[in-house]
């Protein structure tokens, strides 16, 4: 590529291949840059930091490093409006999840996601229930909260390797 420094680590065509092999990333190459997603996006209308069409453009040129180490992929609010309107049925929101998955595998993960993951691994919930709130349940006439299935969840996380993804960073 002329305008981007050649970082030399991965060839451009490998990146697109890798995205397509990720769960959620399969449809990325159907994109023909019509821009419907951009004008459907509430985040793009609010800040220049994120534009789904632009993001896919860079990805389709194979600029993996720029995408995975960048800020843009974390700014999607997962509202699925782009995916709903895309005339090529690109699963844009899923592609962005896949790109986030790839970023985390490459070692880049924002703190808040580390917190979510810890909540999941420790208590089976991304938002842990505080003892304080749980104790108040009878006052509201609520039945006791059934404990979360932390053990089976941990087994699932071990089976998919989720725990290792986070332990790299957490």
């Amino acid at each position: 590529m002329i305008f981007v420094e050649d970082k030399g680590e991965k060839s451009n065509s490998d990146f697109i291949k890798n995205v397509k092999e990720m769960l959620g990333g399969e449809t990325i190459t159907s994109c023909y840059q019509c821009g419907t997603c951009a004008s459907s996006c509430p985040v793009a209308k609010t800040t220049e930091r994120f534009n789904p069409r632009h993001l896919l453009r860079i990805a389709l040129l194979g600029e993996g490093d720029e995408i995975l180490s960048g800020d843009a992929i974390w700014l999607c609010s997962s509202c699925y409006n782009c995916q709903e309107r895309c005339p090529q049925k690109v699963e844009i929101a899923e592609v962005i999840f896949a790109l986030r998955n790839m970023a985390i595998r490459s070692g880049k993960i924002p703190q808040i996601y580390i917190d979510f993951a810890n909540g999941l691994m420790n208590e089976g919930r991304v938002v842990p229930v505080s003892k304080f709130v749980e104790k108040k349940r009878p006052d509201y006439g609520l039945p006791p909260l059934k404990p979360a299935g932390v053990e089976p969840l941990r087994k699932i996380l071990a089976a998919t390797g989720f725990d290792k993804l986070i332990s790299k960073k957490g």
Partner: protein
Amino acid sequence: MEEARIGVFLADSGGQLSKILDFESITEFLRGIHGVTRVQRASEFWRGDGLKTIIDAVKSGEINRVVVAEGIPKIGEIAIAKSISSAGLDPGFIEVLDLKGHCAWPHRDSPREATEKAKAMLLAAIEKVRLSQPIEKAVFPAVKSVLVIGGGVAGMQAAEDLADMGFQVYLIEKEPFLGGLAARAVRFFPTDDCAVCIQSPTSDLKTVTHTSRKCIYRSGISEIPNLQILTNSRVIKLEGEPGNFKVTIEKKPRYVNDKCVACGLCATVCPVEVPDEYNAKLTTRKAIYMNMPIVYPPLYVIDGSVCKFHECAKCVAVCPTKAIDLNQKAETITLNVGSIIVATGFKEFDPSVIKEYHYGEYPDIITHLELARMIDSFGPTGGRIIRPSDKKEAKRIVFIQCVGSRDRRWNPYCSGICCMISLKHATLIKEAHPDADITICYIDIRTTGREHEYYYEKAREMGIKFVKGRPTEILHDPATNTLVVDVEDEILKRFLELEADLVVLAAAMVPNDGSEELAKILGIELDKDGFFKEYNSKLRPTETKMRGILICGGATFPKDVPTVSLHAHSAAVKAAKFLNEGKIVKDLRVAYVNEDYCGDCECCPVTCPYGAISLVPSGNGHFVARVSPLKCEGCGICVGTCPVGAIELNHLNSKQISAQIKALLSVNETSKPKVLAIYCSECGGTALDSAGMTMSYPANVRTLKVPCTGVIRAQHIIEAFKAGAQGVMIVGCKPEGCHYEAGSQMAKKKVELTKALLAAYGIEPDRLEMFNLVYIEGDKFAEAARMMSERIEKLGQLVIA
């Protein structure tokens, strides 16, 4: 039939082949075969003295079967067959093989094995002709008349051509008027000429001056002697055979006869008023109406679905010529035609399903067809571009391209003409109203035809704006009654909210109503987008798999008028060719059903790509299959399908296949393990031909030709193994390119099944393999042959008890 007396003629190609093949040994071998009464060798046999030798032998009665090993087999075969049949021998008794390209050349490094293979090939050819049947020629009637379905540009052009050539033509149109989409389009790009202009007939009609083009209503198309125009008509049934179809037409009543002078009094008194579909419901019409501009016929028509008939009858009272007949009934008409041309065109996609564009909800969002009616000075707005909501002049107009096209949710294809239509409309409007503010939102601008790019230039020069970006939504501000188009200008990477008085959606072009029904009636196919499917748009345009039924124009795919014109004239020529002699003479190289064996499983009609097999009652409540020799292409897919062997090919029956298999594998002097390659006479054979020209491959690969790999059954493959083959190759066309449409896909399925069968019997399934090759892949055939030879050697000897 008399005993076979076989003459074998070996062409030496100027002495070249004998450098490789041992002709003495071959000749001795041949002389020892029962029934071979003559073996001769010369440089060539397809012309000159060589050919004369064969003809003399036939005429003298010395031989009644001919096997020729010829160096230029394809041309040679035709020349030999022609000459010998004029000498009185049925062409079914002639077999031509290629010892040069299929034996000597590719095996020049192993002459001993090449000679052995040559013997096997000749023996196979001899066994084949021994069992040959005569191939008759049948003559079928070809009625010199044509039915053209659809009275738009395509239909009218084709009808006129054929009528001028002297054919009887019936042009039917389901609407009450001719013209199709063209009549509503006002002007055609890229020249902006009138849409109602067509070629004028070349026949010299008195009182009509001859120019190259005329308006439809002035063209005299209705006065061409052998052209009959039926409006309000559609096809409801098809019977008969190609060249001699019987078509049933249903003609809806018009309620107005040809005494009508188009004065319009009836419409002024008619009390029924309905939205005018022709004018995109921008205005209303009466139950009795005529479309403007006048096309043909120049008669009013009554819309039977809204008319009050005898409860009212006001029109009848005022008509000065008594042209209205409210008692008119629908008519059923039967036509006998030799060929049918489908020219039913296309229609505009209804964008109301794209909810985010709010079509149908906000009245100021319209489609091109609706805009065209506004541009038309004959039209409902008298040529003014207005907002339907308040009838005010529309100054700010936004066009949106690809609405429903290139959209996997609706129509994945590009409709091809909408970019040009938008440019046409934008420039026409800008020309008439220079202060109009026009923007076109696009994904790509496609201006690929001749002069199309100049159109795009002109649009930019006139100050029409272009935004690269597909809008996500059209919003409406009720306070100002303005539309707002929400789009990203992706070149600027800026979000725009384009205010518009009028938004025009370039809606996709989709198959016309009734396509599915018509396809079923005629027995022709639709493609995956719902358009009528051409047999092969490169090499056999306008044809379908049903002989005698042609398709042209927008009915096959959206097209611009120049392309429609080409297509329509092409269809006319094809129809003319088909019917010109008034008869169809066909070689009966076709399939036939032995009705005693047919078990009414009803599989073969489904698998025949040409619809040539029908089921006829056999009298005991069951049916038997019957092949139409006129429609049959002789591929043998049905033979490969039939589970009991009730269908045979005239030109290659199952006994002949078995005999050839045995013969090819019997000559085994060198004792090298043999592979049998069964190849199709189309692409498969060409791969062998081209391999033979410059490549080499092992001589232990013996080759058997069939019309189509679809004829192959598991039985044949097992026979080959039993006869001594250690491996079997099937070589056919590419799956999407089978010259008989479906044969090589069926062969692939059978190969898969047979592999499983082999495995069940303890035979390695790898001994069987299918290859799909074309002419330019001769090297791949050579590679495949080598690979199979090596494979069977590794697998070791196979012994079948």
